[in-house]
């Protein structure tokens, strides 16, 4: 299939995501305004901003959980068009981790992990299970393989969710506030897994307000407000020398806590 063979990036600069002039409306409400963003292979980007600023909406456009009305989006060399096969091809390249884990409650942990490899990648069961166990070991819960999601703690569930995405060997990982539904003592175990993943060179876009994580792994931090990318910079500059008033205000608010 042509769509799959275009897996190599077109851009000389090795941009794995190219977002141009992206605009989205909910009815008459303009959620995303002229978003331009290029992401290099292996780059780690943290996105923050006030509630309702469009952070989730933007990253959800990347794997087409949200549609957009204007602009263009190229993911790993495949341009997003209105075509079911095309959308499925892009989704195979992009993994996503949600705030509320969204594990499949009627399947065991192992079945959660092998579902994609078996039904999407058409792998033999044994191979899929071997891969699944490999990733469960990486997120440090191989002993939970035969339990059901409801029997795991929040932190364990989120690590399973990360492993579930990794089983599809994605080129890009999206995280939408992966730790904000977790109790404080579980946040670290999830962040540790994400840091490891970053160290291995995964391309990551992460919506989070965990500033420690941003400082530690991000190559670039993006501030969104009112549907726009207001400011972006290296973590150092971003936190120490915020340029715009809006970012200064935002940082002062989150640092108060």
């Amino acid at each position, binding site marked *: 299939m042509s769509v799959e063979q275009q897996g190599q990036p077109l851009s000389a600069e090795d941009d794995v995501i190219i977002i141009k002039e992206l605009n989205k409306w909910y009815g008459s409400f303009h959620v995303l305004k002229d978003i331009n963003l290029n992401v290099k292979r292996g780059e780690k980007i943290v996105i923050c901003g006030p509630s309702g600023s469009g952070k989730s909406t933007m990253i959800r456009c990347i*794997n*087409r*959980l949200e549609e957009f009305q204007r602009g263009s989006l190229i993911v790993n060399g495949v341009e997003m068009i209105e075509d*079911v096969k095309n959308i*499925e091809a892009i*989704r*195979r390249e*992009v*993994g*996503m981790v*949600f705030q*509320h884990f*969204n*594990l*499949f*409650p*009627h*399947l065991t942990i192992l079945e959660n992990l092998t*579902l*994609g490899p*078996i*039904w*999407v*990648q*058409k*792998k*033999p*069961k*044994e*191979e*899929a299970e071997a891969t699944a166990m490999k990733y469960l070991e990486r997120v440090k819960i191989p002993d939970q393989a035969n339990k*059901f999601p*409801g*029997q795991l703690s929040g932190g364990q569930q989120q690590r399973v*969710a990360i492993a*579930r*995405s990794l089983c*599809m060997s994605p080129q890009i990982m999206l995280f939408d506030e992966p730790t904000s539904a977790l109790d404080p003592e579980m946040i670290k175990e999830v962040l540790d897994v994400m840091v490891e993943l970053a160290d291995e060179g995964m391309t990551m876009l992460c919506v989070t307000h965990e500033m420690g994580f941003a400082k530690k792994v991000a190559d670039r931090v993006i501030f969104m407000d009112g549907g726009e990318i207001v400011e972006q910079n290296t973590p150092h500059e971003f936190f120490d020398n915020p340029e715009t008033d809006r970012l200064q205000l935002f940082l002062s608010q989150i640092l108060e806590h």
Partner: protein
Amino acid sequence: MSKEHMPEVRPVKSGSFFNNPRNRALIYQAILLFGLGFFFYTIVSNALSNMEARGIKSGFGFLFTTSGFDILMSLVDYSATDTYGRTFLVGLLNTILVSIIGIFLATIVGFLMGVAYFSPNWLIKRLSIVYVETFRNIPLLLQVFFWYFAVLAALPDVRDSISFGESVFLNVRGLFFPEIIDEAGSGFVYAALAAAIVAIIVLRKWAHKRQDETGDQFPVFLTSIGILIGLPLLALIVSGNPFHLEYPEASRFNIRGGISVIPELMALTLALTVYTGAFIAEAVRAGVQSVPHGQTEAARSIGLKESRIMSLIVVPQAMRVIVPLLNSEYQSLVKNSTLATAIGYPDLFTVFVGTSLNQTGQAIEIVFMTMAVYFVINMTISFLMNRVNDSVALAERK
């Protein structure tokens, strides 16, 4: 902690046997049981002495005496010279017939209408909403009358039957369609049908195993349909069609031959189907809505196709809500089938609790036998649906 600081404990104890909660519960239950026993004893002994006063012999001897009345429709041979025992059987079979057809059709209508609610097509979604709201909120008895007196009674006379290709006729006397009559060699075709079913079961197993081993998927559903139609069809052609159709023949005043469905059965089936279908549609809607949208999004994010998301993620979770509701809808349908009596469909209630009781006066025996029948039918439904429920619920094991 030193002893002086312990608050003083003063046990409030009456020491009475009657103040122990366990004993109390036992006593209440004993009183209730005694009361109930006395209540039923009074009713039964009253009824028995009434029957005695009117010269009716109690017991089940009446089942072997001649009933002396005709029944509009029966699935087994029956005439007025048969016994009440046979009357019971005829009624029972008619009840089972209308229940099975009703459950089958209501399930199809209910699932279609329930799924229609989620259609992106405005008109189809509206249709589903209007259907559910309308038929759920009108008394069932009224709906039975509607179909019987307003719709079916308005059909043309036999003379002006609505005919479909001169083989299916619809008129005020009912629905008439051809009957398939076996000829020599027809067993071959039935054998092919059985072989097709076995082949499909084997195919499913094989496809599952192959997918586990190699990852290759096989279009099981389409192939199964192909086998199910193809194999018997092939047998039919090879054996030179060992069947013939007996067509209903319309004369001036009557239609003879073929299979006929009396309007009473049609009206009752329609009413039960449409009414119960509305509740099943509602159950399906509730089931699908009970699956959070995040489930679909997570499934999309790993690249699953929409049809697979439905079959692997949404349906299995929705079924856990739908199956228990289906169980109670099926049971309601069976109980509601007694409304047959309002339009004279000869179900068990009509011929047994109606006519037979009237003629024999054996109220206790007849009422209890009939109660037992509905009880057993509904327990059977419960049993079967619980098995289904186990298979959909087992998956979670919380």
